[in-house]
């Protein structure tokens, strides 16, 4: 035929135009600096388009896709691969990276994260530390109440609300939580040499031991093992506890403190407390918003370099790309449920293509995630553990005492 009846046919012509920023939607992987021998995005994009067209039936049948459709699918495949791998990295390193200044790692893609995760654990444990009174991050505050010994006013019961709580609440706007009451008998060790403690060694002994007995150099020395001191301390404690009024306290009723024994002299009773607002407030990393890594959305994993993706990765990308091409082609062919032809209509296989594509993309994503999950740090350690057990088992069957000369 002389006239060109194929002039406006929409179909893959057999090859595509040059892959440039104008022919791919985003262009994240264009013009990378790659080493010699590494396949670039541009080359793979172009060759994959030709491969996919052939897998879809070209040149036996027309493929109603043109180069920009293929290129968009290819770029999306790389982006999808990139996304899944980055998600894996985020999950794997979340604990290690939370709280790290963003400026420290502008882009973590392609960097191996070496960390034990301890900084995060320590950070978390500070809150436990507060509860255990072992240097947590909540400031522990101290205050006192006056304990009176006058006969008229000797009090065992002290209203903590009235004496401390209300005043602090007035000043700080927060209720308090009493964590420690310093109401103890004097330490027994201070009375080891107390001649009136019934178990003491008398001052005479201590003066002699220190060289002051009888105003002359020591003339006698008592050599005792340390456990004797400990036994003596224990004896003093038990004596005080059983034969005397034991020092103790309890919280009764509505935040009332009852102390034992009945006070016989005036003193300050010190208490340690937390402000509730200090404990309850959520602690943020100091600094401005987005200054520190806070959640999966701002861990700095960015676009990878296409040419650095290894062979299995590139193969995954190609397979996913083919599935996306099927989906796109199916969508195109299915825009109209039937295609009019002169005097009739035909039904195309768009629906089958889309179903096939959906199945393939799901399977590919699932397989990739499965593979990545196996390489999670915790799973690698488990595998190493199993490997070690297996190795030991195997070695246990190796005959011992074999000498090879």
């Amino acid at each position, binding site marked *: *035929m*002389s006239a060109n*009846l*194929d002039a*406006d046919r929409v*179909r893959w012509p057999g090859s595509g135009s040059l892959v440039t920023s104008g022919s791919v939607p985003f262009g994240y992987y264009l013009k990378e600096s790659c080493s010699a021998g590494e396949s670039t995005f541009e080359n793979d994009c172009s060759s994959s388009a030709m491969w996919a067209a052939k897998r879809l039936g070209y040149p036996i049948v027309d493929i109603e896709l043109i180069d920009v459709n293929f290129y968009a699918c290819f770029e999306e495949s790389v982006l999808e691969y990139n996304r899944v791998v980055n998600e894996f990295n985020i999950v794997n390193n979340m604990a290690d990276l939370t709280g790290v200044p963003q400026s420290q790692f502008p882009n973590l893609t392609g960097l191996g994260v070496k960390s034990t995760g301890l900084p995060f654990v320590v950070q978390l444990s500070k809150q436990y530390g507060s509860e255990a009174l072992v240097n947590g991050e909540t400031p522990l505050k101290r205050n006192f109440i006056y304990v009176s010994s006058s006969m008229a006013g000797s009090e065992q019961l002290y209203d903590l609300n009235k004496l401390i709580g209300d005043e602090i609440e007035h000043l700080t706007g927060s209720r308090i939580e009493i964590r420690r009451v310093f109401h103890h008998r004097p330490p027994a060790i201070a009375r080891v040499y107390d001649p009136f403690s019934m178990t003491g060694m008398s001052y005479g002994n201590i003066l002699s031991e220190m060289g002051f007995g009888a105003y002359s150099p020591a003339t006698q020395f008592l050599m005792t093992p340390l456990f004797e001191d400990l036994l003596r301390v224990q004896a003093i404690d038990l004596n005080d506890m059983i034969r005397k009024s034991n020092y103790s306290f309890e919280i009764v009723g509505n935040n009332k403190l009852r102390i034992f024994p009945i006070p016989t002299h005036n003193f300050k009773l010190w208490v340690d407390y937390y402000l509730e607002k200090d404990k309850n407030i959520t602690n943020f990393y100091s600094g401005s918003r987005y200054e520190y890594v806070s959640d999966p959305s701002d861990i700095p994993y960015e676009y990878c370099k296409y040419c650095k993706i290894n062979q299995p990765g590139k193969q995954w990308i190609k397979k996913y790309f083919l599935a996306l091409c099927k989906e796109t082609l199916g969508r195109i*062919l299915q825009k109209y449920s039937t295609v*009019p*032809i*002169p005097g009739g209509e035909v039904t195309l296989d768009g629906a089958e293509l889309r179903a096939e594509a959906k199945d393939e993309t799901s399977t590919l994503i699932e397989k990739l995630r499965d593979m990545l999950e196996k390489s999670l740090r915790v799973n690698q350690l488990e595998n190493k553990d199993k490997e070690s057990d297996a190795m030991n088992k195997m070695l246990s069957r190796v005959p011992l005492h074999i000498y090879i000369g």
Partner: protein
Amino acid sequence: MAAPTTRQYPKQNPAFPQYWTDGRKDVGVYNDKYLPGRFFSRRDMNLLGSVNAELFSDIVEVVVQVFKIALSETNVNIYGESVSSQGKMFYPAIDLTCLAEREDITGENGSKFGPDRNQNVVFRFRERDCIITNFFPELGDIVLYNERFYEMDNVVQEQFLGGHPDKSWSLIVNTHYTRLSKLNIVQRQT
């Protein structure tokens, strides 16, 4: 005899003003970017055209030759009929793809003029092909198919995508098997 040079397809020929759109130049045949209606846009039409082209050209591949009657070259008698000694004159054939829907061929023996054979065939052309090849089928035109000649009896142009006349999709031609003696196309024994 050369092929016709004037536009044969009425919608592209200003000689047929009835196909224009109220004389407007921004719509209709004078603006090939104009396609009314929300469905079947130009891109859609191109896609559907591609599928049709593949079906016609690469899958079904029924190619016929069509001969346009050359009225100005045909000598007529006082009744307006072609002179029997000279017959009808046709332009050179062009190739077109189509879908052919054939009825069974039948024979008549009862006629006093001797046995005769009849067959009706419907040829379905893509209108777009007719436009590009500058061929508009008309009554009297001849289709060569299966080494038989079929004369056009009727041309149906009623398949409008989205119901829009500007999106006419086909030209369906009803033909009947014609005798070689009526044509001036094949050299025959005299």
